[in-house]
């Protein structure tokens, strides 16, 4: 049984359905991401768990207890907001002490815990500063310390990296993940950034239009997506149109092996192959390629070369690592495309 459970939760605002009959099970200690484009309902889901909005129907349970009607202050759930919501009229120390003060702890304990929390997030000596004297990354750390110091059962993170610049974002990704691991707190992370979700999560739920489309580990989500939407939303993808046939998918005149190739013979499907999983070679006698084609375009990108290959009227993008031992293929060259059978996935 899940530590956090959503049972048939629906949230409507007027006529629009933000979250549609959601069922969700999150295990204790798990780093769980809600991933989807903006407006997919992920933030509403988080806000329902935090207690800021009530579900229209359905119930939410934590540790077997129904918390659907509990006010936020009775939930023991900490949240870090997108804009951090540091109290601007209080020092960093008072911000972090806020939850402890509300719990009626004595001053000595508060001082000790806040100082420890400041050290934990690497902000020792910042206690007397105010919000406007902090950088984005420091605000983030204060917001996290303010939540962790009250040792909640669940940590909610609402797009916490989106206000940071790219370099800081990379750094904070690993930092947050490390803190989460060392504290062992059940964490629910809302993001529209697939790379954040893939890097940090134990499991990911991909959402669109108020519904969960797939729940799985980063590897499952990336390598075995269950829909075209997920294949296109996460990472780069080639989706070749073809038809189901015995042994795989027929693309043009060629039959290519594919995972998830179940269904009626002749049904229209898309064959997913990730650009980095394709090997590109000059046409030779020998090992039979998956497909053959002709290089239509080549773009040099430093660490890799990106090729557009025409095959049977469809275009395949291939990313080739920029290594001197790999043959360079000029536009117009006839090429063979290879990949391992597991790399192809049939999608409806």
């Amino acid at each position, binding site marked *: 049984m899940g530590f956090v459970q959503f049972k048939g939760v629906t949230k409507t605002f007027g006529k629009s359905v933000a979250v549609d009959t959601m069922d969700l099970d999150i295990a204790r200690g798990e780093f769980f991401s809600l991933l989807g484009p903006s407006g997919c309902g992920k933030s509403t889901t988080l806000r329902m768990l*935090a*207690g*800021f909005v009530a579900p229209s129907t359905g119930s939410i349970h934590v540790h077997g207890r129904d918390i659907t009607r509990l*006010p*936020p*202050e009775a*939930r023991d*759930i*900490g*949240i870090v*907001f997108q*804009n951090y*919501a540091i*109290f*601007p*009229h209080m020092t960093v120390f008072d911000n972090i002490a*806020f*939850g402890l003060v*509300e*719990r009626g702890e004595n001053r000595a304990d508060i001082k000790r815990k806040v100082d420890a929390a400041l050290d934990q997030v690497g902000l020792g000596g910042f206690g007397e500063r*105010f919000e*406007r*004297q902090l950088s984005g990354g420091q605000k983030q750390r204060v917001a996290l310390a*303010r*939540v962790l110091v*009250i040792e909640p059962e669940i940590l909610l993170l609402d797009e916490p990296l989106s206000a940071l610049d790219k370099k800081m974002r990379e750094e904070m990704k690993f930092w947050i993940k490390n803190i989460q691991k060392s504290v062992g707190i059940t964490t629910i992370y809302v993001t529209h950034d697939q790379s954040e979700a893939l890097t940090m999560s134990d499991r990911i739920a991909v959402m669109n239009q108020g519904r969960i489309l797939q729940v799985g580990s980063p590897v499952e989500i990336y390598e075995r997506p269950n829909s075209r939407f997920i294949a296109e939303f996460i990472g780069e993808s080639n989706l070749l149109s073809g038809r189901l046939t015995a042994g795989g998918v027929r693309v043009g005149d060629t039959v290519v092996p594919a995972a998830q190739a179940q269904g009626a013979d002749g049904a229209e499907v898309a064959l997913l192959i990730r650009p980095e999983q394709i090997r590109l070679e000059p046409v030779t006698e020998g090992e039979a390629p998956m497909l053959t084609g002709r290089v239509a375009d080549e773009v040099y990108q430093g660490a890799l070369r990106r090729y557009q290959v025409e095959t049977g009227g469809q275009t395949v993008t291939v990313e080739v690592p920029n290594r001197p031992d790999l043959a360079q293929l000029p536009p117009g060259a006839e090429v063979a495309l290879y990949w391992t059978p597991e790399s192809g996935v049939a999608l409806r």
Partner: protein
Amino acid sequence: MTERRIPLVLAILAILGFAYMLLPIVVVVLAGLTAGEFLTFPPQGLSLRWVAAFLSSEKYLSSFFFSFKLALMTMIVSTILGTAAALFLSRTNMVGRAAMRAFFLSPVVLPGVVVGFALFAFYISTGIGLSRTIWGLWIGHILYSTPYVIGTVGAALAAYDTSLEEAARSLGASPWRAFRKVTLPNISQGIQAGSIFAFIVSFGQFEVSLFLSSPNSEPLPIAMYNSLRYQFDPSAAAAGIFAITLVIASVLLTNRLVNLRTLLERRQDGS
């Protein structure tokens, strides 16, 4: 600090504008300091004679303190009502919110004479014993001052990030504690500004007072008006000096409160 240069034309226009607004006040002040018998400008010599007359006039002094008391009472109620109304308007999603805001703010746009007369007619026709009492006058002033509080507090709330309050709630604060410890300090400048507005508006209120005040409890503007109708003597101008001084003092006081705060914050910024 970089020096900002203001174009000469704009500077001249600004000076003319200020002069246009401030000259009548200068006239009143000088007229109140005249040594002559009549309310004239320029004054016939300077003296504190009429100021002394004001200070020894029981009628003026009592109306001055009556106005002060009334403005204070009005300020307290308007601040509470206006803040509550602004909070409600900023948080509700109910249909007709815009209409409700317009309704709450309407006393400012309606002619004061209309508001005053309407209240007067209402008190008389219903016979609820409020006509020509301080309570009836008080209600009229509250009605007139509250929209200013709604306006300034509403502006402060528009700039206020509600996730601050949500953060406080999820850290364990009850709705009331979250409001008092987080929301209130962050909109307090708007509330301060609104309450000082309410005080000044009530202190200078004329039209509503004209209908609702009684001869034994006259606010200062009514007392000045009545006095000028029958005897055109400079003690009314001297009363004006005190009224202007009080208003300027209250504005400076709030300004100082607010500025001191930003000043303190700046210094911490620099450290």
